């Protein structure tokens, strides 16, 4: 594996169009059984993820946004194969990860690592930073020779902006932001190609959040990492992502570049989601066009028929409750902007707000 410090250091953060696809998800589906009754029989399924497909290119950041129950965290765990799929393929390096045996999977997992949301519960309180960041080396002893591990952990600490002298400290001696840096250092310890980040900054205060985002962006430039950045905070995702997938009840409803999603959204849900975000500018009060959705997100155990958004959509007609719209390309640019709506044209024209 390439030396992390000396490899790809592109300073232009934008276009990854020419970069090779390193991860291809095809029709990923995950249903969790619901057990009920005395015999614990399966009485139904939570449809957490349904037919999710996308490509991830080397060095890019794919943002995944959506509300609770939309399947974004399940997706993150599926990319690590922490969950077995109900259906679909996940192609990495030309092989389907779900077809691999345990040992081969363990070897591949070196290239795909994950950072979790909660820096307070994802670190074992009884282990020192040296143990925590060095833990991946126990699983992959060939990654770094035993004698060089401590040195390597200190390098990693420096990389994420922690003081290497604190190597013998315990997690409770660090603040939330520092703990998340420990989580990130552990995530990059094996020089992965892909880092899946599940709400990495959601638990942090605003002033500390900016520090951690800056660290993540620097690491991406220096190490050429690809990020799958799962978050509910739309402004953070806009800042960090090259492309964005918007999810609703287990499906991707819109996928496009950051600009396409935020400036030219075509799906009514994307528009509603964006307009619901409070703008930190009191002068914008009352001036922006707000789309107020009614009700809550329906239960993924019993998703609505047809288009899953139709129960809350102001454009919905009969066809929406019977036919599932496909994720199709929108003709507004390079042809990679896709959304799943029967009435995209009306939605885009902007005249039809509730």
């Amino acid at each position, binding site marked *: 594996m390439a030396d992390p410090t000396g490899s790809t250091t592109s300073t232009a953060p934008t276009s990854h169009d020419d970069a090779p696809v390193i991860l291809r998800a095809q029709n990923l589906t995950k249903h969790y059984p619901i057990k009920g009754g005395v015999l614990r029989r399966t009485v139904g399924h939570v449809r957490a993820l349904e037919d999710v497909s996308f490509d991830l290119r080397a060095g890019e950041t794919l943002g995944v946004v959506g509300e609770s129950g939309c399947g974004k965290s399940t997706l993150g765990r599926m990319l690590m194969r922490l969950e077995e799929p109900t259906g679909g393929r996940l192609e990495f390096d030309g092989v389907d990860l779900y077809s691999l045996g345990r040992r081969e999977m363990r070897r591949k997992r070196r290239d795909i690592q994950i950072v979790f949301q909660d820096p307070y519960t994802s670190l074992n309180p009884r282990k020192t930073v040296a143990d925590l960041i060095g833990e991946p080396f126990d699983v992959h002893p060939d990654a770094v020779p035993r004698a060089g591990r401590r040195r390597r952990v200190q390098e990693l600490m420096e990389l994420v902006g922690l003081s290497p002298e604190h190597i013998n400290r315990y997690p409770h001696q660090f603040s939330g932001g520092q703990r998340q840096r420990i989580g990130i250092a552990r995530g990059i310890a094996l020089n992965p190609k892909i880092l899946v980040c599940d709400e990495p900054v959601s638990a942090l205060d*605003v002033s500390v959040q900016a520090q951690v985002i800056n660290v993540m962006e620097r690491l991406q430039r220096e190490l050429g990492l690809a990020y799958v950045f799962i978050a509910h905070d739309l402004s953070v995702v806009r800042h960090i992502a090259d492309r964005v997938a918007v999810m609703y009840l287990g499906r991707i409803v819109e996928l496009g570049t950051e600009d396409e999603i935020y400036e030219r959204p075509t799906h009514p849900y994307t528009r509603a989601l964006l307009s619901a975000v409070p703008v930190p500018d009191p*002068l914008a009060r009352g001036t922006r066009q707000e789309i107020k959705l009614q009700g809550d997100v329906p239960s993924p155990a019993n998703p609505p028929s047809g288009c899953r958004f139709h129960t809350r959509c102001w454009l919905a007609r009969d066809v929406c409750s019977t036919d599932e719209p496909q994720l199709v390309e929108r003709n507004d640019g390079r042809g990679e902007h896709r959304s799943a709506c029967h009435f995209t044209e009306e939605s885009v024209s902007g005249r039809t707000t509730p």
Partner: protein
Amino acid sequence: MTTSMDSRADRPRPGETDRLLEVKDLHVEFHSREGVAHAINGVDLHLDRGETLAVLGESGSGKSVTAQAIMGILDMPPAVIPRGQILFQGRDLLTMKPRERRAVRGAEIAMIFQDALSSLNPVFPVGWQIAEMFRQHRGLNRSDAKAQAIRLMELVNIPAAKERVNAYPHQFSGGMRQRIMIAMAVALDPKVLIADEPTTALDVTVQAQVMDLLKELQAQFHMGLILITHDLGVVADIADRINVMYGGSIMESADVRDLYAHPGHPYTQGLLDSIPRLDMKGQELYAIKGLPPSLMRMPSGCPFHPRCAHAQDVCRSEFPPRVELGPRHESACHFAQEVVRG
């Protein structure tokens, strides 16, 4: 229906002033074996009828402790209030008899919390829990209290309130539960409503609905609203005035437009600058260096000085005085004038 709620909603009665609440030089400490945590160090704030005051701060800033002290729900001990006054319509809540204080709590000053699921009792129907307010405080009988509960559930837009009055908290979604909490809070027509991070646990589309409901109810009942939050977006949307807290002190206080346009404290400036903005795409975010202070080991002088780019010797030794920067605009910074000029 002529309950107190409808009759008193509009204007102050004779003899009542607009000033509902005045907190003066409030100090709160938490005593433990490890030492004394100075959670609040001399907070002054005030609230008028119909006004929305946002208390903005990060974790450990003292914003929630301030709210709990006003509401009178701090656990004492470990909490100690060595100094200060909390005047509600001129009467000091801190020197009241427990009985009088109980009559104020819930009926005159009500509060809603971040986590509606753990604030509701899971083993009683929601309607019963709302009705309890009327049985306890107003002495209504069961059927009248239940009718009031249904009216309140309709007021906060719970669909099919009549049918759902006997449902349990787990049968409602997160947004609905927060609406039920709001219904309980406004049940007795309080003059002051304190909302502690009311939408933090909710999804963004639901958050918008709940904030709208709060705004509506506040206007309808002419309540004073204290919104405790860390979200600069929510504040910009709803507040009239903002108090920015840091390390247990109010760093800056201003009308909302003034604060966003001309922040007069380096901490406020830093917060506003660290929001990801469109025109900053691809650039490093501004980040306030360092970490918030430990309440056990508060820095000397200005609590923000270890993280402040403007810090001089005086900041390390002396707590800054409040500098008036304009009408209703104060900043606790030795260099407030320079900061506000940019």
